[in-house]
């Protein structure tokens, strides 16, 4: 963990920087994704109906231990924190690499972690599934719509729609009025849905009557654990959004420096320069917001709900704006299927709806910051 000198003098400010270990982790993930997850391959995979590359996932999740970053060593993980997982998500966002990291290694893992330590068969089943998931051997997915927001009661119907990465899951965590259950994918009925974001496939999940799966927790415990999973997912999604915005800005700057019209690089026109400079300001601000959320999650700060909602309200907008500008400033080429800009736009817009929209997070903030709505 980076210790800025300010920490030594006993401030309670969050640590908003990247530590050396985090920078090393970033370099390793970037190398791996650079070698193995090029955008053209992703496009081809998507068109073949499956964007997911099991070998890449194995290398990231198991090989590098990224799946277990949030899990303490004694529970079978790497004993790192949300700050490191956030760095992995930044890189996944930049590379637009399809991987069930947010769903399995963050949301489901954090849900299971919140249940760890229970006694009896429920505790044993949770511990086993957590260790398998942290080791990257099992992909576990919380069977809720990707749009489920922290701070709201999640749906518990017999069929759940828009579940992200369900098709890649070995185990689904099913939330019912009477508790949380682990169901093997073979025992669930999955209907693929055509997603706006092809890099994060969606499906409807229905559990056949009679197969209840393994019970992991009763009502109250399950609700709190699911809330924790969603809150953590929302907080770390901000880092994925940061990665998306960074890529879009860098690529747009690179392209407009090279593209000539009117005998000048188009990037020398002030109208465009100012738009890119404003995007840069948004990226810089998004980074502070995303780091603050990751740090609050890592330190268990009292401020965590507020930090997460601020990050979601800000970073969702920044990522969508960057992706929209990326398409517009690439113009014709930005509208083509061949150019990756559309992948970023689709992911950015889907991420804006994921885990609570900016509007939903601002409603949460209205309460957290004591700024009540009019009567």
């Amino acid at each position, binding site marked *: 963990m*980076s210790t*800025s*000198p*300010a920490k*030594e*003098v006993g*401030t309670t*400010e*969050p*640590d*908003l*920087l990247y530590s050396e270990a985090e920078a090393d982790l970033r370099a390793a993930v970037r190398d791996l994704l650079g070698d193995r997850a090029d955008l053209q391959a992703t496009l081809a995979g998507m068109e073949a109906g499956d964007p997911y590359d099991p070998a890449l996932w194995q290398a990231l999740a198991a090989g590098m231990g990224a799946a277990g970053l949030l899990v303490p060593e004694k529970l079978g993980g790497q004993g790192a924190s949300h700050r490191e997982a956030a760095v992995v998500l930044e890189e996944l966002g930049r590379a637009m690499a399809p991987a069930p990291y947010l769903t399995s290694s963050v949301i489901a893992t954090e849900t299971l972690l919140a249940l760890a330590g229970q006694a009896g068969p429920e505790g044993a089943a949770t511990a086993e599934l957590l260790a398998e998931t942290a080791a990257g051997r099992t992909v576990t997915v919380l069977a809720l719509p990707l749009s489920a927001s922290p701070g709201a009661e999640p749906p518990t119907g017999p069929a759940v729609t828009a579940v992200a990465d369900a098709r890649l899951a070995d185990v689904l965590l099913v939330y019912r009025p009477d508790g949380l259950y682990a169901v093997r994918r073979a025992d669930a009925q999955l209907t693929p849905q055509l997603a706006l974001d092809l890099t994060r496939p969606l499906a409807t999940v229905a559990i056949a009557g009679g197969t209840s799966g393994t019970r992991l927790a009763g009502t109250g415990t399950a609700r709190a654990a699911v809330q924790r999973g969603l809150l953590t997912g929302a907080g770390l999604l901000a880092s994925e959004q940061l990665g998306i915005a960074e890529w879009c*800005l860098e690529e747009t*700057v690179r392209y*407009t*420096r090279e593209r000539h019209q009117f005998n*000048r*690089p188009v*990037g*020398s026109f*002030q109208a*465009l*320069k*100012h738009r*890119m*400079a*404003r995007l*840069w*300001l948004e990226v*810089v*601000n*998004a*980074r*502070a*917001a995303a*780091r*603050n959320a990751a740090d609050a999650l890592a330190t268990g700060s009292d401020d965590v709900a507020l930090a997460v909602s*601020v990050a979601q*309200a*800000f970073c969702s907008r920044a990522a969508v704006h960057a992706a929209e500008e990326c398409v517009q400033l690439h113009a014709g080429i930005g509208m083509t299927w061949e150019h990756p800009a559309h992948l970023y736009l689709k992911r950015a817009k889907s991420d804006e709806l994921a885990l609570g929209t900016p509007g939903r997070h*601002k409603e949460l*903030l*209205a309460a957290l*910051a*004591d*700024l*009540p*709505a*009019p*009567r």
Partner: protein
Amino acid sequence: MTDAHELRSRTREFLAARPPAGTDRADFLKARFDAGLAWVHYPPGLGGLGAPRTLQAVVDAELAAAGAPDNDPRRIMIGLGMAAPTILAYGTEEQKRRFLRPLWTGEEVWCQLFSEPGAGSDLAALGTRAVRDGDDWVVTGQKVWTSSAHIARWAILIARTDPDAPKHRGITYFVCDMTDPGVEVRPLRQITGEAEFNEVFLTGVRIPDAYRIGAVGEGWKVAQTTLMNERVTIGGMRLPREGGMIGLAAATWRERPELRTHELHRRLLDLWVDAEVARLTAERLRQQLAAGQPGPEGSGTKLVFARLNQEISSLELELRGEEGLLYDDWTMRRPEQVDFTGRDIGYRYLRTKGNSIEGGTSEVLLNIVAERVLGLPAEPRTDKDVAWKDLAR
């Protein structure tokens, strides 16, 4: 090298020797400077100890806890934020010894004689002339928008010493004595009704060559240090949550439920998020500087705060409803500092319009970000290799 522990005990010893309650304010500040506790990162003898900049927080915390007087940094912002770092970087030993102590204690206030009627954003086009005469320079010209000139003892000044050179190369940087004959300061009333800035007329002002900062013709390079520090000073304040303009608007919102509307609620929450994120960004910048990894973010904070201050004060004015139609005081005043919190919302709305103009307009700062941070191509230029005297005006 000094560490936090050592500095804390040093500060406590200093306080024990001069309990703030029983010591005259000016004496206390002078002694603090002499003890190297003014700005600990400055060299010994010049108010510092050559310690890391971050350790200033240790000293400030100890002094604040003891109820020690401060040097009223808002009143002496130009001196502290702009003149001091420039003098430290480019001044002679004699200049540093002469100017830094009274600057820091606030005994001597500084102003900045840069902008001219014909040279604002294009500052390097300035026309105020300085002509060498023996050991002196004779300066003639007009400056404008000069904040604090009416209370200033000294000014940092840039003037043209070679009209035949291209504009950036014929400028020299000076310290100007505001009490000299030939310096005339006239209030310039502004949008808020008060006169915080001035016109300054310089007529045959004699500046000794010993008051030149940096080499003849190198003034533009020296001025870059000043301008860089200006942006950081304006944008780089450390704030608690709701510490800026947003805190005032949020307080009004909480205290006056009858004024709330859904539309204003939506906008208030948007701005609250933006203000919180801007605060975190400034904090992140501070942590980067402290960790010795300065990033380009500094050029961004001023831009963001300028927009936020304007939008937040605009929203608060609307929130006030019929009260928003009123103004607190139009009498022409000559304030010693900008006072956002002591005046009403109408004043804040008007004064924040200056946030996107003072210290470089937002448009010019966006150019700087685009070119220096993002590396986008420069605008085509027509003034580069042309002698200043041949430029269109």
